[in-house]
């Protein structure tokens, strides 16, 4: 790894940090738009105007928005996530277990989806234009084109209603999420391998008599690793959109469900923290994808 790669990667990381600050500002601004006076909501309709004014003062609600933003950001950096409005518990306590549940769901899904998607993506590229390739592609376009909730309801219909399988609690969310992210991953992996197969050295391998699997696995694949890993990281970012729907449909006690519920009760600190966790996760995955793309670019190697 040479200095050019290092500086590119550091530059990308710097961009990620700047982006995160802008994102935090957008999240703060968006939640600030929520109508209604927080102090009034907290104290209920029966509160005297003096009590409301006192609470506003105590919560620093009279300060300018920019000051509250900086205070909130400072708190986040020190690990102080604030206190939930709805039940007065520290946000960190509410989130802890829920976050673990969601991460568990994401991990299990990744474990299932990544190997299957890579296998399908590489083999369809290998036998491009065959019936198998076209079949898988049709399925992929179908999955990409429909909303996540439809895949979830379809899964319920097939497994619970028609087959009457009694599946473990995890199974349905995992199946649904796997479909959602595999479709993207298969598509991108296939494109990356197809692109590599167009290279002259792959044609050379074919001309010297290498078999098709050998041509793909030995000659093309090592050079497609960078784009493929990039595709995997990008597809995993679809998990974030997927879990919001899937946790709601299956009533899974994860952080997305917590956030959807917090939206219903207008619990600002909780919404802000959940939104930041989501954005952070998304940004980390995108940044990893970009860094891998930089590092694996052979033109930047010595």
């Amino acid at each position, binding site marked *: 790894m040479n200095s050019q790669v290092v500086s590119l990667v550091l530059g990308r990381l710097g*961009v990620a940090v*700047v*982006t995160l600050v*802008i*994102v935090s500002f*957008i*999240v703060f601004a*968006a*939640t600030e*738009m*929520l*109508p209604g006076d927080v102090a009034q909501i907290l104290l209920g309709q029966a509160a005297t105007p003096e009590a409301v004014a006192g609470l506003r003062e105590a919560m620093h609600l009279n300060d300018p928005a920019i000051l509250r933003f900086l205070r909130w950001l400072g708190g986040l950096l020190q690990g102080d996530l604030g206190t939930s409005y709805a039940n007065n518990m520290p946000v960190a306590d509410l989130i802890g277990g829920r976050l673990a549940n969601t991460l568990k769901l994401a991990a299990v899904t990744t474990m299932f989806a990544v190997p299957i998607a890579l296998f399908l993506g590489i083999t369809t590229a290998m036998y491009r234009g065959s019936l198998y390739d076209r079949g898988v592609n049709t399925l992929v*376009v*179908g999955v*990409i*084109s*429909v*909303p*996540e*909730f*439809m895949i979830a*309801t379809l899964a*319920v*219909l097939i497994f*619970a*209603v028609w087959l009457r399988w009694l599946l473990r609690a995890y199974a349905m969310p995992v199946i649904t999420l796997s479909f959602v992210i595999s479709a993207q991953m298969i598509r991108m992996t296939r494109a990356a391998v197809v692109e590599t197969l167009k290279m002259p050295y792959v044609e050379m391998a074919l001309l010297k008599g290498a078999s098709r699997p050998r041509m793909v696995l030995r000659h093309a694949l090592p050079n497609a690793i960078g784009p493929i890993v990039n595709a995997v990281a990008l597809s995993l*970012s679809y998990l*974030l*959109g997927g879990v*919001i*729907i899937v946790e*709601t449909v299956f009533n899974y006690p994860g952080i997305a469900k917590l*956030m*959807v519920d917090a*939206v*219903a009760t207008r619990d600002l600190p909780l*919404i802000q923290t959940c*939104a930041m966790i*989501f*954005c952070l996760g*998304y*940004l980390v995955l*995108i940044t990893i994808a970009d860094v891998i793309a930089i590092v694996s670019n052979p033109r930047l190697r010595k």
Partner: protein
Amino acid sequence: MTARSYSNGLFGYRLSAVGTVAALVILFWVFIALFGPVLTPYPPGEIVDMDYFGPMSAQFWLGSDYLGRDMLSRILMGARYTVGISLAAVVISCFMGVVLGMTAAVLGGWFDTCLSRFLDALNSIPSKLFGLVVVAGIGSSIPVLVGVLAVIYTPGSYRFARALAVNINTMDFVTVARARGERTPYLIGQEILPNILGPVLTDMGLRFVFIVLLLSGLSFLGLGVQPPNADWGSLVRENIGGLPFCAPAVIMPSIAIATLTISVNLLIDNLPVRIRDRSE
């Protein structure tokens, strides 16, 4: 029609059979969105069936919903919301994205840098999360939905248009126009736009699909089109109780969404290479 038949489609380009069918399905839904209210056999808001989650019958072609309202009428009305809101949002987002993208490419400098940074940041908020927070915040109404969806998909369109425009911007005829003393609006409107129009329209189609999916997702979460009105996503949400007995009330709106989005994707995949591949 045989499998290999071709028709002379848009702009005299040939369109494959799959593309033709997809285009016809899209035209069908646009027609329904425009004339839906005239075609409904029953008033969509009125309870007309004694039974709830009724099956398909000669009287109620697509069955009835959880209250006994006619499903066919509700889907015909829903087309108006799903197609209309998505179309409005995609036009606004692509207009803003393309104009800003071309301007950034032509002007360059700090304008380009600041705008790109800001829109990239906006882009790194998951779209569903953004929609959820904002729509929950300022309440859901049709103008709010259109605005939020447009804002969410502007950065992507900007990025796409800017990347294309940067390439055109280095060409000789743009340099000549600039040397002639043409102003920025002329440069982007007369010199750059005609050269990126094909890929931009293709991108608009893909973005339309994303918007339909997000709108349906938001409606499914109860944050989209509000009762008594209903788009297709809300129809699925309302009737999700019918899922255990496969009621047409929950399956039909799903099929409606799927036919629309899959058709748009297929049409784009089958567009003549001369239009599509300019985008790469």
